[in-house]
């Protein structure tokens, strides 16, 4: 029974990866289409120059461009949704097979966290059109799943005593959710940096940028993502401390994983401050957001695999 479910789960993972790959191609084609299309709107420099409190010029969305309907984009989104459904199914089947939440070792963390990242990406669309970071999201998730399936894969095993806690459910889930928002924030910040370079005349050639929001608008969107991520991360930190108190007998011990969670928290606190500090808005704070997300990925991979500490739950 368990074996059958695990087999189905693995088939679903590989199918999802194949479809994410297609989605990634479509997202990329969409970006190149944007580059090819005559710029539907002039560069919106006026928005860049506007004050800190206002986004005076709402840049027209891509869809408004009457020249070509974003066929690739729609296909890419449909594929992403399909891949995500399979991806979630894979995680759920894995959880059912194991009889517990599907995030107790590196393979399962990656499986679930990437599903959450895509979930955040999809849900946020209802509220703000962020489809232009689809290539980033699908590409990132594809690579992460690929590494997990080939390098982190482990069989379903029961939970060791230290992991048998409601905090496993809460702490890890919220951390993954926070990671999803940080990922989107980083993606937006990358586009923002490109856009700022372009506005400064340093990035000629990236013509698809013409169809994307201006740097300041991107900065505001990134900020909103990261702020949500930051609240979730703060909660993760506290929930982790409560759990550490139960399982290891102290709420804070500068264990390597604790150190890195703290470093990430501090970097993003720095990011939020940078946004409020004269001279640090714009590209500098965007760089901090990207460094912060890099630290998240580092914490999840290098620290898990190569650093010694109490969080030895990679299962590898």
């Amino acid at each position: 029974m368990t074996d059958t479910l695990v087999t189905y789960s693995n088939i679903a993972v590989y199918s999802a990866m194949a479809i994410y790959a297609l989605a990634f191609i479509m997202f990329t084609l969409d970006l190149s289409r944007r580059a090819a299309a005559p710029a539907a709107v002039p560069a919106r420099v006026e928005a860049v120059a506007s004050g800190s409190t206002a986004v005076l010029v709402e840049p027209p969305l891509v869809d408004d461009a009457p020249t070509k309907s974003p066929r690739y984009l729609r296909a890419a989104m449909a594929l992403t949704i399909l891949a995500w459904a399979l991806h979630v199914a894979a995680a759920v089947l894995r959880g059912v097979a194991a009889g517990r939440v599907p995030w107790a070792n590196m393979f399962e963390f990656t499986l679930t966290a990437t599903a959450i990242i895509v979930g955040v990406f999809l849900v946020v669309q209802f509220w703000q059109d962020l489809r232009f970071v689809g290539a980033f999201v699908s590409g990132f998730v594809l690579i992460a799943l690929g590494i997990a399936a080939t390098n982190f894969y482990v069989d379903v095993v029961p939970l060791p005593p230290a992991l048998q806690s409601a905090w496993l459910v809460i702490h890890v889930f919220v951390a993954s959710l926070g990671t999803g928002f940080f990922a989107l924030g980083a993606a937006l910040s990358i586009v923002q940096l490109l856009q700022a370079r372009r506005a400064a005349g340093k990035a000629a050639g990236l013509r698809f940028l013409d169809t994307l929001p201006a740097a300041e608008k991107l900065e505001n969107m990134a900020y909103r993502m990261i702020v949500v991520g930051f609240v979730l991360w703060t909660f993760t930190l506290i929930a982790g401390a409560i759990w550490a108190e139960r399982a290891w007998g102290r709420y804070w011990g500068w264990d390597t994983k604790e150190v890195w969670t703290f470093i990430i928290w501090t970097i993003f606190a720095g990011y939020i401050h940078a946004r409020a500090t004269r001279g640090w808005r714009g590209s500098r704070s965007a760089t901090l957001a990207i460094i912060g997300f890099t630290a998240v990925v580092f914490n999840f991979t290098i620290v898990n695999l190569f650093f010694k500490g109490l969080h030895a739950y990679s299962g590898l």
Partner: protein
Amino acid sequence: MSQPSEPTQTDSYRPQGHYDAAEAPIQQPKLGFVGYLRFFWRQLTSMRTALFLLLLLAIAAIPGSLVPQVSSDPNGVIQYKANNPELAPILDKLQVFTTYSSVWFSAIYLLLFVSLIGCVIPRTKHHFDALRARPPKTPARLQRLEGFTTRSAAGDPATAVETARALLKRAGYRTEVYDDSVSAERGYLRETGNLVFHTALIGVLVAVGIGGGFGYTGQRVVVEGYAMTNTLASYDSFNPGRFFTDSALVPYSIAVDSFVPTYETTNIAAFGQPIDYVANVRTTLRGGDPQDATIKVNEPLHIGDTQVYLLGNGYAPVLTIKDPDGNIVFSQPTACLPQDANLTSNCIIKLPDGLAEQVGMIGFFYPSAVPLADGTLMSNFPDTINPVISLNMYTGDLGLDNGVGSNAYALSLDNLTQIAGAASATPAIKLSPGESADLPDGLGTIEFTSVPRFVSLDVHHDPAQTWVLLFAVLVVAGLVTSLFIPRRRVWVKVASSADGVLELEYAGLARGDDPGLDAAVAELADRHLDQLAPKVEP
């Protein structure tokens, strides 16, 4: 900055360098000591300094994750020093093995918190004033502000103003009428949340400090059938806080009746993996009646202002050693250190007295022994399916008499000669429970009597732990409030034109990130118009 210029008497106080604050002229320190002090203080409490210190703190935390720390991994530190004889002394000088209590790390976070206090106090004071101030005068021209929109309606100006004011009041704004306009402001909670957040951070730091200062932690290995007491002498190791006094130790005892592990046996991929650990104990608090309790991983025992954690376990074989006349010279459990997941364990026994010579033993205990091709043993399951102990024996000088405290879990072979084991004529002694053997050289006999388990218990007392949690909850609450409550101003202006038609103007101003402002102003305008001229169903 393209900040519209308008009255700022209810603005929040902004630290120097805040993008929203007036750009202060470059200030040369005024001559004199006080002048310098004031200059220095202003620099320390500026946004740029706060940012710099935050980023510095993040960087300073990195080395401690690359190099083992005395506090969390003392054996790792010893090993690291042995492996890096060149680098280790330098790192030691730089306090890298104790990064998080090092002078430089402490300096950074203390400066950060001084900056934080210097930042929070004036803001709090200003915020209290702002709470009592009236919303600012309506700007002369609303056109340049956000979400600017106009409507026109019939009616008289006074009613229009009053209706707008009532609408805004209901929406949670504080309002003030200036001539033919309403000035409204909401979201003071945003600044309140921000101040609660920063103040709670200070609370966390102070509570952690107090807890560490007055608390203590102690470790004790207890074998099944034995007990520990909460007294200094009873602990194997004890770490008091700086302000610890003996009176903080509430007298109690914990007797370990049994330790029951459960191991996976059906799932082949996880064969032998621990599923559950339960220590069944009897506790006696302040000489009261004994009570039964259990301690599990993730479920510590709460007793006498302490938490007692089950952090480790293993085997403690009981060996009985007799001299040639049959007198018992040693009969007690020896806690053996687990070496691997199947609990192959390393046992050290020292017998300074009782036999003709000082005797030391290094043993390996295998709970489920299986022979390997080369004749050595290994354990293939953590439970006792086929328990065997194998002992190498030594005679000579154990080095216990020189007054230097020695490690119970290590045997120095410097002045010892092997009498049983691969390097001597007699092979290592191998025993299962119930078996006995003669010691070499006619020293006596040894019996493997039984094999109880031991648990290692960690006892923690932290008087401020609840406070840390409370401040942490305030941190989150303050954060959510300050990040998600918009702080905004809204104005409604009424002008009547010659033909009796009212020209209504609406506009807003965001204080901080406020994505919903335009929509909020438009909605206000529509609802205002609805109230002034209720739609008549056709």
